[in-house]
């Protein structure tokens, strides 16, 4: 039985259809990465799966229970760390975990034990008796994660767990997610960071404007896109001419900004000299050149026509090549 099963799930807000009939399945013990830009419908989907929002169409079940008909059973089976780390600044970390334990129905002694164990697990023992209002962003996220685990849920929902965190804190959260998954917890993770989905997820679903536009393992999705592309930084005023030249060598991709030309090349690094020669013969100056292997952003571009991230994607497989 899948840990999460969704069929035709829909959510309308008035006339706006924020989630437009999505289907997905997450097998037990897997990490599912739900990737999409702001406003794509990720959080709305998570809120429906965690019973915080009623679907206006379709069905969904989590841990074997229908999210509408058996909402309370769903809540007893899931752990949730939402986009806004929902913490009380006046409580200490320990108090918060104990409160969460009480909310989940754990007896007091068990709740205390669990709090101590989880605080140690997320490296917050030293800060456990300090008020949450004094915690850093990374500490708050770790505490939120610990609170979500207090009753050892079989399914864990993480809504953009590393948004706003520095790289070190982000990596710490990633490690914890992997450890949880190693213990058998199914993880449903929403993110707008390509690298996060790439690194963590067994399967990725890409959502845009309320629809799932692609689904599969990160590798299979990237393989679908096919060839790597060359990214050229061209002098101002010569971009259009550079695009014309490159279009004769390979397939042009949508530009990221007004200065870069992106051209897909069949033979990878072997095609670079051809590109450079052609541009040189046309008298076009190239300021820099990189060979970029397909990323999930490329998958997103392929399916939707626009980039997931406006900036250069983090951690993509890039090999800078001097001109």
């Amino acid at each position, binding site marked *: 039985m899948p840990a999460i099963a969704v069929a035709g799930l829909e959510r309308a807000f008035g006339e706006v259809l924020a989630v437009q009939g999505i289907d997905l399945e997450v097998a037990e013990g897997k990490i599912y990465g739900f990737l999409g830009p702001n406003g794509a419908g990720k959080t709305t989907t998570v809120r429906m799966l965690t019973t*915080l929002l*009623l679907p206006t169409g379709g069905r969904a079940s989590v841990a074997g229970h229908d999210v509408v008909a058996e909402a309370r059973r769903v809540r007893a089976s899931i752990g*949730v760390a*939402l986009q806004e780390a929902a913490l*009380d600044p006046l409580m200490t970390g320990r108090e918060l975990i104990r409160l969460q334990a009480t*909310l989940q129905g754990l007896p007091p002694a068990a709740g205390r034990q*669990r709090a101590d*164990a989880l605080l140690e697990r997320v490296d917050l023992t030293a800060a456990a008796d300090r008020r949450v209002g004094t915690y850093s962003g990374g500490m708050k996220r770790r505490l939120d994660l610990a609170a979500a685990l207090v009753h050892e849920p079989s399914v864990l929902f993480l809504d953009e767990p590393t948004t706003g965190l520095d790289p070190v804190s982000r990596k710490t959260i990633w490690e914890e997610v992997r450890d949880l998954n190693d213990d058998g917890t199914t993880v449903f993770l929403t993110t707008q960071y390509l690298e996060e989905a790439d690194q963590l997820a067994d399967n990725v679903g890409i959502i845009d404007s309320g629809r799932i536009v692609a689904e599969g393992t990160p590798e299979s999705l990237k393989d679908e896109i096919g060839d790597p592309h060359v990214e050229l930084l061209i002098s101002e005023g010569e971009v259009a001419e550079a695009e014309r030249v490159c279009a004769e060598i390979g397939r042009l991709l949508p530009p990221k900004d007004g200065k870069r030309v992106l051209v897909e090349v069949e033979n990878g690094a072997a095609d670079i000299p051809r590109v450079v020669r052609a541009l040189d013969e046309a008298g076009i100056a190239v300021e820099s050149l990189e060979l970029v292997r397909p990323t999930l952003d490329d998958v997103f571009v392929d399916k939707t026509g626009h980039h997931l991230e406006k900036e250069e994607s983090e951690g993509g497989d890039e090999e800078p090549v001097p001109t």
Partner: protein
Amino acid sequence: MEVAAKAIEAPASPAWRTNLATIAALMARAKNELVRVPGAAIPGVLAPTIFFLGLNGVFGALTQLQGFETGSYESFIIPVSMLQGAGFTGAAAGVNLARDYEGGWVDRLLVSPAPRWVLLAGNVLAASARSLIPATFVLAIAFVIGAEWPGLDGLAVCYLMVAATAAVAACWGSMLALRYKSQSAAPLMQAGTMALILLTPAYAPLALLQPWLEKVANVNPLTQVLEAARQGFVGSVTWADTWPGIVAMAGLLAVLGSLALREMRRTNV
């Protein structure tokens, strides 16, 4: 990070015990604002005290009118101020809930398996308990300036009405907080409570009110509550003057509590 805390076998508790523990935990959290934020208790205490002293200073001469059961206006008006304090406290519980909603805290509660009525009860009972603070403070001031001692029975009935009024106001405030999900509904929370308390024989006995207010006060359940709270201060405590207040409170709690619970259950719509 160290890997995997061992699973802890927790024996299942009966539901009633779990629910009680949850209510107690939510009440304990609510007290943090009083205990951990310097000066947080002051506004809730200051407003009813100012009103009490102000109204007593301004309208004290009204006791010269025929129809007043007492010559001590402070004794007459102190229950009004205590109920006002309860109203402010209850409305503040609604404002806090709205703030918790805006900050995402309420999601944490809603995503837990705790029954919705338990979550509401935690907020409401916390307001009830907290209302005893301004009530006691303003009562102490009243005694200093000469209010009559109501007797232990009068005091008990008065405090019961205060705690119940705070609960009613908290239900009203919670209902609005869950409906509008925003602190901008705060003025409505405060104004609703204040209106209900003042549209009673707050300033003068029923017989001395202007006809329109007398009519309104006669149908306002808070009139029975006020009369029950006041009886010890202006005379003796009788069951005949007490039970209408209890019934009025029970009715208000039933109605507003149901409405608040309905909103709590509809947060996911």
